[in-house]
């Protein structure tokens, strides 16, 4: 028999019992839709986190105190302002463009009886260019603010929302931080919730002010993090090794273990991607189980169909159908069932992913599920393979029937 005829006959056969076909296909639809939706959500999460990390800044290096990956390093020296300044040396660190030491602490921001607990960040003027900070209104902190220990503050949008219920027209207002008045000189643009904690619930004040009046550290010159910007993306590793060299010399650890950790954006990115990758595989795996269950449904229905049609199979064999002809007939039917389920499932999964995206947006998270071509191909091939695999046993049973016995059955 030629193949198109076989397909047409199979279509006629599966449309002859619409309810049963519908229920069988439903199993596959749910399975494929779940796989597609889960992969889309996983990929979307990955893209969203990657975007957030890229938004932190450009060609950025993070320098922390202590050895993150080695518990044997004790008595670490703190990072200081002098360390940060040393990184600006053009001769020992030619690939470092800018450096921004940061002091970070938590505190309450108050305005007319309302209180918001948020992160207080003390920064220098370079911080804004290093971290790609943009403002909704006002001006960034200047070198003059630093020299003058000025009591000025930039508000994150969450803080502005909480204290003022608005995000504009706030320049000139006065808020209290650590019971001291600070004049608002600007509002930070939203960075979105991201992998590193919300950067919207924070306030930025001059480094010198933080050091002397707000965030108290045991060593006067200590800093919590030093952000360093490499001159371009290719020189990030070079800048990293230059910074290591300088800090080793300054911390007197030229041999032995480093008492500081340098991470690049790429390190964060790969960590985040491996986590979301695991998440995607995990979600997809759970969804694949439902696809498997759908496949077993197909096998069940095909077995029923073989039993019901024993007489038909016997007749076809009496008329000259070979084993192969019957085998192909039933395999085409089962693959067709799962292919139809797969196609509807893809559309359905797409819809689910879209709805998940809309719900996320409505809840304030900017997150777009991504239905990739690879996911669609995978689902189509996988669902057809499921139909073929679970069709083999029933089809083989049909093909092995002896015509005499098959014709005798009622």
């Amino acid at each position, binding site marked *: *028999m*030629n193949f198109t*005829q076989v397909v047409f006959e199979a279509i*006629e*056969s599966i449309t*002859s019992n619409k309810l049963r076909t519908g229920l069988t296909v439903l199993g596959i639809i749910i399975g494929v839709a779940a796989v597609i939706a889960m992969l889309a959500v996983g990929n979307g999460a990955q893209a969203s986190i990657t975007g957030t990390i890229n938004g932190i800044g450009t060609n950025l290096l993070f320098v922390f105190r202590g050895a993150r990956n080695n518990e044997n390093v004790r008595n670490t020296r703190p990072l200081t302002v002098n360390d940060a300044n040393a990184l600006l040396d053009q001769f020992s660190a030619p690939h470092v463009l800018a450096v921004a030491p940061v002091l970070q602490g938590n505190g309450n921001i108050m305005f007319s009886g309302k209180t918001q607990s948020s992160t207080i960040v003390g920064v220098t003027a370079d911080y804004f260019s290093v971290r790609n900070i943009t403002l909704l209104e006002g001006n960034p902190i200047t070198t003059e603010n630093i020299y003058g220990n000025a009591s000025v503050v930039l508000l994150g949008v969450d803080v502005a929302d909480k204290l003022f219920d608005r995000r504009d027209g706030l320049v000139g207002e006065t808020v209290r931080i650590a019971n001291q008045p600070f004049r608002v000189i600007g509002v930070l643009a939203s960075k979105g919730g991201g992998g590193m904690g919300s950067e919207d619930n924070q306030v930025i004040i001059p480094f010198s002010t933080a050091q002397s009046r707000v965030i108290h550290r045991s060593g006067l010159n200590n800093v919590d993090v030093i952000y360093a910007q490499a001159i371009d993306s290719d020189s990030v590793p070079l800048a990293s090794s230059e910074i290591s060299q300088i800090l080793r010399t300054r911390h007197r650890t030229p041999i032995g273990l480093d008492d500081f950790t340098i991470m690049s954006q790429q390190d964060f990115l790969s960590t985040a991607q491996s986590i979301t990758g695991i998440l995607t595989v995990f979600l997809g795996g759970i969804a694949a189980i439902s696809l498997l269950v759908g496949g077993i449904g197909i096998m069940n229905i095909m077995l029923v169909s073989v039993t019901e049609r024993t*007489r*038909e199979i016997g*007749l*076809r*064999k*009496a*008329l*000259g*159908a*070979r*084993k*192969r*002809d019957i085998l192909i007939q039933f395999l085409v039917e089962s693959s067709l069932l799962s292919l139809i389920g797969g196609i509807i499932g893809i559309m359905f999964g797409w819809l689910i992913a879209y709805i998940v995206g809309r719900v996320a947006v409505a809840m304030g998270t900017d997150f777009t599920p991504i239905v990739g071509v690879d996911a669609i191909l995978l689902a189509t091939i996988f669902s057809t393979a499921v139909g073929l695999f679970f069709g083999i046993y029933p089809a083989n049973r049909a093909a092995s029937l*002896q*015509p*005499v016995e098959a*014709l005798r059955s009622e």
Partner: protein
Amino acid sequence: MDWVVEAKDLTKVYKMGIVDVQALNGASLKINRGEVVAIMGPSGSGKSTLMNMLGCLDRPTSGEYILDGESVATLNDDQLAIIRNHKVGFVFQSFNLLSRQTALFNVELPLRYSGIVQNRKAIAKAALEAVGLGDRMTHRPTELSGGQQQRVAIARAIVNDPAIIMADEPTGNLDSKVGKEIMTLLLNLNKQRGTTLIIVTHDPAIGEQTQRIIRIRDGVVEEESAKGTK
């Protein structure tokens, strides 16, 4: 003589649990090309088993069977399928049509398995016209009377121009008037096309209309009563 069926010492043993049942016990018979033969015998006589052997639906346990010049006793399942497709047309008591398909499709079915693509519809139409159903081609079996359904089945049996037609109680599910029409049709097809016709039946009235009656008892051919050509 031009034998279309030459069976020699056919035996068939079925295993029913631990007991062997001897359904055929050395049956030998020859059928001439173009002959009309009835196979008769009481139930349990091995009549159906013999029919299955002659129709190549089953293989004998031992013995020799030459159908239309080909030895078929030792062929495998797929080879038998091809022989059935080309050389045997079946007419069953209960018609055995595919109820969801049209009359035309049912008649086309053997052609599909012989891999004929071109002219398939035309050949099938000609067969339906030959049984007088030229105007019922797109009807489904459920829309046809019993006699019409059996006509479709006969059209299906002759569509591949087989060497023999095996008819198993062809009138068993029909009333006597329609049964007579079907017998007349079968005999006419035999006359016009020269196709050998083998009818398995209980009905002595049908046996009367054939040229020869082969009687089976206890798995052997008991007597062959030749009659005058009808």
